[in-house]
């Protein structure tokens, strides 16, 4: 648009100066011609008068008065003219004065609404004043036509400028738009997207470096993911043996001495924690790579929470559902893990889960998880959602995996929800998870 404005300005300036110069030149030409003609006419009339003693009107007629104009002569105080209606009154007093004083002169005036040039020449001393009245209408028409053409071409040039500007800017911006949309696609979970190869030598560098940047980023992400998967695989195998072996041992706990049973309980307790840590860690790695929510389905929230409580070994009465049964849209396994982590957090850091309350808030459903611990200081209410936030304030064996709350927060936001921490009225901390209610 700026380009178009510039084009308009430049072409208008050019047109205006062309017009001024042309006008000046044409007028000048015309004026010179008219003055020359006037002298010729004056000489002719004078010659006629002096040689043949002809009368003035006849001499004037022979002098060929200009089209639409007139020749006017004042001789011995008497006025003669070749055109009716164009007489001495046409001639401005100033010009008359000048001629009478023996000097030639000219003036441009409006006569009957049209531009006219009047040239005066004295002859025979001051006995005769000779005036030539030349209409400039023709010149004016020419100038008007010229100005029309100039305005028109200025507009045309501006239009063409705008078009050119748009085309040029589109040509410049188009690859940038493509880069932007490609980057958005990649960020939106299509890491295989690349810029198409181009013939344009000016763009080859851009396309090449963009694509190689994405390539190396993707390799990095993939190697990270592979690393997480490999670590997971390597850790899962020994963990499988451990879990199953401890399970076998526990089947025989009655045959074991009390101290051995105690040891087995310790092992199985920490094994469960290790397992949860590994699960959360792998889950976190996958969450970082963008949660795969392709398995989303309608999930009845009450059932989900009841099963979550059951899995955590909690009684069902801890759930207070104040809704008429709400369905959310999501991945039930991921959501279970998120809520299980909240329950786990209440147990580990909040001296026990008090209640899970489900409330409907217009298009949202709030799951309120209360504990009766010391609560969370205001300044820590953001920090606790960071990874391994607990490890900095680790308190012996009660510390959790340090990933639970972070993972819960990430899972809920991937489901279009939120998670925040506040005070429970009275005592303890309150975690509120908001999730959009699925359309029925």
């Amino acid at each position, binding site marked *: 648009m700026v380009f178009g404005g510039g084009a308009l300005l430049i072409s208008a300036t050019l047109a205006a100066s062309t017009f001024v110069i042309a006008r000046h030149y044409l007028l000048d030409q015309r004026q010179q011609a008219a003055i020359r003609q006037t002298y010729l006419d004056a000489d002719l009339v004078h010659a006629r008068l002096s040689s043949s003693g002809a009368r003035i009107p006849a001499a004037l007629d022979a002098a060929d008065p200009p089209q639409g104009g007139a020749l006017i002569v004042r001789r011995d105080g008497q006025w003669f003219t070749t055109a009716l209606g164009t007489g001495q009154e046409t001639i401005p007093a100033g010009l008359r004065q000048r001629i009478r004083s023996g000097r030639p002169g000219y003036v441009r005036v409006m006569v009957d609404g049209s531009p006219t040039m009047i040239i005066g020449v004295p002859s025979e001393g001051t006995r005769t004043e000779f005036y030539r009245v030349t209409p400039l209408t023709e010149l004016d028409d020419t100038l008007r036509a010229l100005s029309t053409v100039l305005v028109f071409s200025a507009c045309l040039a501006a239009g063409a400028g705008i078009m050119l500007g748009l085309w040029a800017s589109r040509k410049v911006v188009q690859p940038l738009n493509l880069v932007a949309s490609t980057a958005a696609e990649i960020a939106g979970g299509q890491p295989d997207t690349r810029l198409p190869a181009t013939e344009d030598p000016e763009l080859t560098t851009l396309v090449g470096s963009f694509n190689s940047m994405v390539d190396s980023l993707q390799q990095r992400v993939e190697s990270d993911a592979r690393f997480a*998967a490999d670590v*997971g*695989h390597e850790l*899962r*195998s*020994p*963990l*499988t*043996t*451990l*879990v*199953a*072996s401890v*399970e*076998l041992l526990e*089947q025989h706990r009655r045959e074991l001495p009390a101290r051995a049973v105690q040891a087995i309980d310790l092992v199985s307790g920490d094994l469960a924690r290790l*397992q949860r840590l590994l699960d959360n860690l*792998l889950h976190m790695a996958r969450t970082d790579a963008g949660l*795969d929510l*392709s*398995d989303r*389905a*309608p999930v009845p929230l009450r*059932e*989900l929470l009841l*099963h979550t409580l059951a899995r955590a070994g909690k009684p069902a009465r801890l759930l207070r559902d104040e809704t008429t049964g709400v369905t959310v849209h999501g991945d*039930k*396994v991921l959501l*279970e893990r998120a809520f299980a982590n909240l329950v786990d957090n209440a147990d580990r850091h909040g001296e026990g889960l008090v209640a899970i309350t489900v409330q409907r808030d217009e298009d949202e459903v709030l799951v309120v998880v209360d504990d009766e611990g010391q609560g969370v200081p205001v300044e820590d209410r953001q920090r606790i959602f960071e990874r391994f936030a607990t490890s900095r304030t680790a308190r012996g064996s009660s510390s959790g995996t340090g990933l639970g709350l972070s993972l819960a927060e990430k899972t809920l936001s991937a489901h279009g929800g939120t998670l925040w921490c506040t005070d429970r009225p009275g005592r303890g901390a309150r975690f509120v998870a908001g999730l959009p209610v699925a359309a029925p």
Partner: protein
Amino acid sequence: MWASQRQATRGRLCHDGRMAARLLVVEDDDRIRTVLRLGLETEGYDVAEAACTEDALELFRANPPDLMIVDLMLGGLDGFACIREVRRTSDLPIIVVSARTDTHDIVAGLEAGADDYVTKPFQIKEISARLRALRRRTASLVTPGEQPAADLVLDSGPDRRLVLSPSRGTVRCGDEDLHLTLTEFNLLCELATAPGRVMSRQLLLERVWDQGFFGDERLVDVHIRRLRTKIERDPGAPRMVVTVRGLGYRLDPQ
């Protein structure tokens, strides 16, 4: 081999006097294989072990088991190849064990022909419960004295008469038996208990796989797909086993 395996009860005697089910464990990790054997022998199975696909197939041909547990990550031929090879001749229940929880691997394992999956680390009782669920219907089908369920005509077309016979454990197309796996057969029987009515994935998951709320509904979807390729005229445009969007599946006898 197909029909006879549904009633296979050879092998050593169990504690309660019944014949123990024979189980083949294919797993390349010695320790996991050993603990599986220990645990599942305690549960009353007659366990054979194989460390790779090649050994497993040899054992399988020499002495066909009743059930299989297959790890997907094996050296040499992987678990998918093992399952596909076994499925060419047998309908026995197969459980996949995977260290990966990727959607892709699990679905691929099921597509290859597995009936269920368990991710590592698992507990013996979890595997044992899955095995029991997969065998449950087999046992009930041959329970003597039970009122046999009536045959159901699935497709009455003259050129392609398809009959489900729950009591005999067969689906016949004309004069031929269709080769359905045990789970596919059970799934079809479950749908056939209420032809024309929608059954939710969750319900099918509970009835066929004996799994609770957190069961994986993809099990149902993959098995429905496999079932369709065997019984539908055009599996790409199924008319017998119909998907009811958002609700589940429905059996429409033609």
